[in-house]
């Protein structure tokens, strides 16, 4: 069964409008919670039960994250939604903003209620102008309808929500860099601990979740944590949005239950273009190590299966490559990305990403040396696990993955000073 949660209103004519959303029971969960004064702990328990894991990439259990906030601590707390969607290959949150903004808003209000926050921010990727306008429009509708503002539906609970358009930096998707950015500072990750639950936006307790995580909340509460969990498989509850792209016939966003075989997803996406063989797949955004096509065709789309194969489900961005692709060229492009997007504060990432890119660039351009392969591996080991944020790891993993599975193409480049593909 597809489109059960975040995309469940996709069949409507203009699902982003408030009346359309309400026609499918939208805001009823919020109304129920506010009128019945549902204890916040009950909500958090239900989210925990659902097995929802953060859809931003790290897969941290959402209910658990919410439970870290000391609800009764005095002072402001914040709910922040991460709609920065910077991970190459990922374009699912854009569709939530475009087609189901109210479900996100409802999810954020409930999150605020659950942790005792009265203010929220949605940090939207700078390039998402159209989705931003959609979301802004939805905010106005929600405000006019009394779902945002003071004393919501006469419950005594206040919640205000603002969107914040980013400036186009990948690093601002990292949660603490995002908080810095909202505060008006340079987008640089903070050293953790302390985590945002204790020291978040403006130093106040904050939960920060991905768009998809938060947009899933109203449905989880409506249909129950068990229901959601049972959509998926062990350790990977629910259904999930996958942004599938590459050499396929119907690239796009597909919501499918966790644990669905990759082959099925590929089929939904129209199969391989021109019937070419599937050479390689990056299963979870550019930061996830590549998996050879034949191996991938045997895997299911859930956290454990992909991890077992040495990669990550990440943000659910599936990049499919056929045999016309040179893996050295692909890696060069990816390494360039991390080199350009490193925030530059910590040494291994600032210096290492540039080094990786330059070496791969040399190999791609026929100037590789045999010792470069060992050097690349060594440099990735010196970055991974030694940086402030996970961008360092994200830059290292694709290199490691490529060298593990497609070493021969790199060797060919070094030996023949040209590409194997098409040779």
């Amino acid at each position, binding site marked *: 069964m597809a489109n059960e949660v975040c995309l469940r209103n996709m069949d409507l004519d203009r699902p982003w409008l408030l009346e359309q959303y309400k026609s499918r029971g939208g805001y009823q969960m919020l109304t129920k919670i506010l009128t019945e004064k549902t204890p916040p702990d009950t909500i958090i328990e239900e989210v925990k039960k659902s097995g929802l894991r953060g859809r931003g990439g790290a897969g941290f259990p959402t209910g658990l994250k919410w439970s870290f906030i000391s609800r009764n601590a005095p002072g402001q707390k914040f709910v922040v939604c991460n709609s920065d969607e910077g991970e190459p290959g990922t374009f699912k949150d854009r569709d939530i903003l475009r087609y189901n903004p109210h479900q996100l808003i409802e999810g954020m209000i409930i999150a605020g209620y659950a942790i005792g926050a009265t203010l929220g921010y949605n940090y939207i990727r700078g390039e998402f102008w159209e989705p931003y306008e959609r979301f802004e429009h939805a905010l106005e509708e929600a405000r006019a309808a009394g779902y945002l503002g003071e004393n919501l539906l006469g419950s005594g609970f206040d919640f205000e929500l603002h969107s914040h358009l980013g400036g186009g*930096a990948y*690093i601002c998707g990292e949660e603490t860099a995002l908080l810095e950015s909202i505060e008006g500072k*340079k987008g640089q990750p903070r*050293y953790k601990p302390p985590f945002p639950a204790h020291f978040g936006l403006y130093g106040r307790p904050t939960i920060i979740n991905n768009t998809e995580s938060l947009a899933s909340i109203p449905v989880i509460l409506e249909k129950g944590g068990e229901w959601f969990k049972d959509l998926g498989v062990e350790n990977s509850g629910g259904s999930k949005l996958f942004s599938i792209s590459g050499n396929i016939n119907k690239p796009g966003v597909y919501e499918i239950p966790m644990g669905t075989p990759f082959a099925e997803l590929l089929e939904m996406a129209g199969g391989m273009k021109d019937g070419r063989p599937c050479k390689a797949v990056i299963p979870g955004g550019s930061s996830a190590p590549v998996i050879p096509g034949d191996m991938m065709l045997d895997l299911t789309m859930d956290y454990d299966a992909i991890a077992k194969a040495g990669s990550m489900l990440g943000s659910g961005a599936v990049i499919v490559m056929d045999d016309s692709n040179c893996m050295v060229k692909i890696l060069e492009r990816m390494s360039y990305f991390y*080199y*350009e*997007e*490193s*925030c*530059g*504060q*910590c*040494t*291994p*990432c*600032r*210096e*290492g*990403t*540039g*080094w990786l890119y*330059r*070496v791969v660039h*040399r190999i791609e351009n026929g100037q590789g040396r045999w010792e470069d392969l060992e*050097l690349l591996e060594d440099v990735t*080991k*010196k970055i991974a*696990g*030694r*940086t*402030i944020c996970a961008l360092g790891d994200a830059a290292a993993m694709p290199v490691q993955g490529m060298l593990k599975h497609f070493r021969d193409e790199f060797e060919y480049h070094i030996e023949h000073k040209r590409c194997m593909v098409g040779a």
Partner: protein
Amino acid sequence: MSEEQTVTIEVDGRELKAQAGAMLIDVTDAAGINIPRFCYHKKLSVAANCRMCLVEVAKVPKPLPACATPVADGMKVYTRSPLALAAQKGTMEFLLINHPLDCPICDQGGECELQDVALGYGSDVSRYVEGKRVVKDKDIGPLVATDLTRCIHCTRCVRFGAEIAGVRELGATGRGEHMTIGTYIEKSVDSELSGNIIDVCPVGSLTSKPFRFQARAWELTQFDGIAPHDSVGSNIHLHVRRNEVMRVHPKENEAVNECWISDRDRFSYVGLQSDERLTAPMIKRKGGWTEVDWPEALDETARVLKQLHGDQVGALASPASTLEELHLLQALMAGLGSNHVETRLRQNDFRGKAPSFPWLGRPIAELETVDAALLIGSNVRKEQPLLGHRLRKAALEGAQISYINPFEIDLNYAADQMVDTPFGMLADVAGVAKALGATGGLIDSAKVDETHQAVADQLKQATKASILLGNIAAAHPDYAILCGLAEKIAQASGATLGFLPQAANSVGAQLLTGKGNNAAEMLANPCKSYVLVGLEPAYDFWNPAQASAALKAADSVIALTSFRSPSLEQTATVMLPMAAFTETSGTFVNAEGIWQSFSGIVRPAGEARPGWKILRVLGNLLDLPGFEQESSEEVLAEIRENLADKKPDNSLGDELPAQQLSQTSGLQRIGDVPIYAVDPLVRRSMPLQQTHDAIAAAVYINANEAGKAGLSEGDRVSVKQDGHQATLGIIIDSNIPDGAVRIPAGVAGSETLAGQFGQVTLEKA
């Protein structure tokens, strides 16, 4: 977290006790265990960005930065395990790949943290064969040179600006490898503490511009010293090569200057090499100056002095003179029958009883713990920069700092500023006193406004509060009234009265001098003869026009001086070359009342001799008793004996002078002394004179007053004060109140005018 809770951790097999929550690196530093680091600085916030301090912590798979890892009971740490060393060496390799490795031409060479750590953790050959990053250098002013290609992005300089200097002048712009340190918009770094970024920078990216390419670190010999330009008495290291002071660094002393010094203390040494150094004794003969040898100069001086007695002679000395110099000067004068020795040359109102041992009122370090402070007539940030820094720290902790000043000062924290004409200041101070329930004198007729009440309440509610009188107050024509009102405020609010003494030995000078005629009296009724110590008549007096006239009228003026200067040459009859800062031993008493002695560490320029020796020999030549000392230590021992029972004491006489001297009509001059105009040495340090803070003489006036007088920015005006005249430019400045103009003193251009305060008229020139 309970603060007192101690935990036990194990580092490299050694058991250490530490406070729970302390950062690991502080604990290992205290135990003498060295962990390499770059971004960590004990006075700055944790950045944890360099990743040099990675260590292994048992049960944690990844190495952790010691600078950002709080210790917890039972923690086991390995600073040199294979995992830790691999991480440290990995970071080192990364730091070096884009570093130019230009140590042979780098000023930091030999004292570079990167160089030192690379020796232990670096490799001899680089695996990096790609092109290296190059960063264009920026011109950030006359004090700090940049070689940004060497930068390792530790952001210490950025954090220093934001957290200590209190101005975000430097930032890290750009991402990743493109990140560079800079000012974003081209501009200079102007903080009065900016030179400290040279010290916090671990590499040769930010170095001293005046010192640039002058010497290698290993050619320098380090000596201790005490900075001579304000009453903080910052502890300094003087770096000397071949009898020349090459640079000045801070010497750490938590109680005084922590690990910082002001730019004034760091860069004034350049003035020691001024062409204007007086290197031989000179006597004025037939209107011209003739160089003579010491015996001749001393004989001539003794001959002149011998003819004088009693009230005919007065001594005027710089408040930065040492205790030893002042003691002997006092003794010399006493021997001649005069007790006219004065150092308060920037004061004109000597009514009332001066405190016997005027001081800050509390230890310097304690300033940062006050919850409220009222500063009267003070630009502390520029007058005593490190006291300003302490007050800023207090403000950041929530203290309410208020000012009553004749112009709005530039501050780097939130404070209440009451700005009024010099006359109006009295009303403000009286208003605060009245709000506190004090009575008497001006207070009774004062009006209490909301601000007065708010400040009064803050002072009253504070558990620790200070009322501080600054340099502008000391020059105020009604200083005595300000002091009296300040004391009333202190008494009524329970706050502590304190002074922000002007110069390095203002406090010490008060202990020894000021028993005869004061400076105002000595100049208003000219003496037959004057002895000047360390002064330039044009710039070091409250009323330079009056001072010059009095000196010119005298039969003889004996000047002990390190520098020649036109105003001295016009007025003096004998110039005796005196050793300058770093060339003589001596003692200063700082604002807190701490006696700090120092030695002479370079030979005086030319024939110059330490002031105390010149005075001692003069005493001998005059056959006076009490001039047998062989060393400055012996002089000091005498002083100590005489002053053994002197304790800091700010109490003033009970009587409030009731009568105001300041005029109530016409435009009032505010003649503050800018930060780099305070003494002859600072005035000769070219790098300091090129900074933004080295403002020139001009008429600073607000748009309203300028409009009334038909003046606009850039106009030249003829300023008249008390029959004296100067032609100056107009600068429109919204910080000046109506009814007043700021015409700085101590700078070229205003020396022909009269007092630092007083009525002036402006006329388009």
